């Protein structure tokens, strides 16, 4: 399934970005965590609760963030003093709002694309549904 123009534009800014695709009735949501700035708008806008602010933070999101961004600056600083690659997720205290990973649950996702449209950092891509992939019966299951 060829990438959309928008998908191609996003991928161009992400040298080693990984693609996580999900099967949903609507379009296929692809999240580029490294571009996420942590503002949480996708979580608040999501009608089905598929995206939610989690209680943990994946430190890689700092290291892989684009150079100019705020998380990029954090990543650079961390990269200079780190002894080894981050081991696992970090527990986030209550009052730290922005440095949280968005937990995305493919099962709950309706594929409506609201998160993609609302994402200020263009970190979420909503690919049109794969017409041939799922026969109608299965679609309605």
């Amino acid at each position, binding site marked *: 399934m060829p990438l959309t123009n928008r998908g191609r534009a996003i991928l161009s800014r992400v040298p080693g970005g990984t693609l996580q695709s999900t099967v949903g009735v609507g379009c296929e949501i692809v999240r580029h965590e490294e571009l996420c700035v942590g503002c949480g708008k996708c979580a608040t806008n999501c009608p089905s609760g598929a995206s939610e602010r989690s209680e943990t933070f994946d*430190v890689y999101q700092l290291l892989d963030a684009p150079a100019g961004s705020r998380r990029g600056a954090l990543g*650079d*600083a961390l990269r*200079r003093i780190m*002894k080894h690659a981050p*081991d696992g997720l*970090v527990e986030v205290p209550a009052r*730290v709002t922005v*440095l949280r990973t968005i937990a995305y649950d493919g099962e709950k996702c309706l594929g409506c694309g609201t998160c993609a449209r609302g994402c200020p950092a263009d970190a979420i891509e909503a690919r049109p549904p794969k017409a041939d992939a799922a026969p109608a019966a299965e679609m309605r299951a």
Partner: protein
Amino acid sequence: MAAAPAASAAGRETGVGQPAVAGRSVVAFCCRECAYAAADASANARTSLPPTVRLVLMPCTGRVSPLHLLSALAEGADGVMVAGCLEGQCHYREGNFNAIDRVAFVQRLLKSVGVAPERCRMFTMSAGEPPKFVAAVKEMDRVIGGLPPLERSAVPAVARGAA
């Protein structure tokens, strides 16, 4: 890679006025209402302190962000310290609560990348408790003194400020 400091620093007690281990530097983000006031009060009493700690004035510890803490470490500080008001006494009501959570978060970040979390510590004191400020500075000096200097890789300096 053994992240923990080689020699436990417990053995060395830095007495008053004893020359500290040279070469260590700590950046202390102090809130203007309580910590900096306590610092001024202890200085006016001519209490001598190890020179490792350098104060940066902040309106409130609520202003300190993880970017400041990590950038300070990345640019030469062996340790960072946040000193604010006692809980419930914050002049801006809840700035210190934010600082406590952010320092805890930075500690966990450091731990996950093998850096000793004690390099980043939060202290709370009232403007009327200079001894608490003195103790905090001595504690940081003792702990950071016990740790080896923080090695930094040669990646270019951190991008100054936001894009």
